[in-house]
């Protein structure tokens, strides 16, 4: 396990080397609270490496094996962590493909709004750019998660084997300021989101309310492609990785092709 210091915190990173002719670099960003890099590692990481991408993964601060500081959970902290990893640790040269699951997609859009020239494309699963509507939703979800901590504690005492996942989430919410800081984040100027002129693919679960945000994302990013996968909820990536791969890999091949000069 590799732990590196970036933006003042210790972050857990992994890397999968490309197979065959290198076609670029992908960074895979997981979602909030109970998620970790494993969601990507077990679903899309290896197929992307097979497609020739250098695949970079990390656990967000407060998550997985990364450090869990008491404070420092605004959107800006998450974006600067990614920036520091790319600049100082991975030393990526050339535009990157950003993949984000849920809040991870929001980090991807936020990074792209800040550095559009460094991004080759974005794949967002059950996610949206950093808009007021999306952050309102996340705030309600965080508040709800905090309310269920008491129930979780009861489960924790009765089922030791599933205790660890719950413990991650409850500790994050109880011992850090993420529930307060993240909803209060300063959001980027919508004009900087509109300036992301790269290919964007958004996937949604047909049973999830996140697809209600698709029209706003389409308005901001008219080039974005939106696909709804029937029968799945917010956990689309881990519940139906087959379908996610079937949507992402051909799209990626065509967008890489478009980006290749004269190709």
């Amino acid at each position, binding site marked *: 396990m590799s732990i590196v210091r970036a933006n003042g915190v210790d972050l857990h990173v992994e890397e999968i080397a490309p197979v065959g002719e290198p076609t670029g670099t992908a960074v895979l960003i997981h979602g909030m609270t109970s998620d970790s890099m494993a969601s990507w590692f077990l679903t899309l990481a290896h197929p992307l490496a097979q497609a020739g991408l250098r695949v970079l993964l990390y*656990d967000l601060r407060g998550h997985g094996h990364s450090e869990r500081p008491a404070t420092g959970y605004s959107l800006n902290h998450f974006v600067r962590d990614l920036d520091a990893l790319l600049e100082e640790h991975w030393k990526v040269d050339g535009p990157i493909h950003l993949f984000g699951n849920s809040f991870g997609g929001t980090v991807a859009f936020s990074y792209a709004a800040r550095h559009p020239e460094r991004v080759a494309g974005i794949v967002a699963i059950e996610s949206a750019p950093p808009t007021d509507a999306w952050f309102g939703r996340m705030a309600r979800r965080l508040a709800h998660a905090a309310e269920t901590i008491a129930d979780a504690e009861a489960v924790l005492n009765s089922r030791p084997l599933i205790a660890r996942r719950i413990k991650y989430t409850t500790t994050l919410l109880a011992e850090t300021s993420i529930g307060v800081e993240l909803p209060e984040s300063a959001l980027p100027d919508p004009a900087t989101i509109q300036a992301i002129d790269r290919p964007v693919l958004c996937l949604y679960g047909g049973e999830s309310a996140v697809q209600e945000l698709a029209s706003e994302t389409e308005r901001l990013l008219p080039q974005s492609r939106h696909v709804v996968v029937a029968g799945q909820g917010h956990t689309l990536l881990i519940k139906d990785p087959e379908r996610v791969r079937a949507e992402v890999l051909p799209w990626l091949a065509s967008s890489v092709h478009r980006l290749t000069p004269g190709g």
Partner: protein
Amino acid sequence: MHSDQTAVLADVDTMLRDVLGDFGPDAEIAMDTTFRDDLGMESLDVVSLAGRLQARYGNSVNFALFVSTFDVASVGDLTVGQLVHYISDSLDKVPAAS
């Protein structure tokens, strides 16, 4: 069980206990031990295990390929025996150094 499988099981036992740390099982890890129900493994533990397998066996064991046949939902049903068989089969295919 072949003697080489016994050796691989011993390796896997060590790696799993390293990965699980304080959460490791008190009981013996056997071929029919399951990742989720017996060991309480999280998906992130599978990532850590992948790193240790790579360090131990290098490219002769393609754990990435093995893992890609599972997904987050089914990786928990994996048994230690399935992994041990996969490792020993992979090692058998490596041409012996002369």
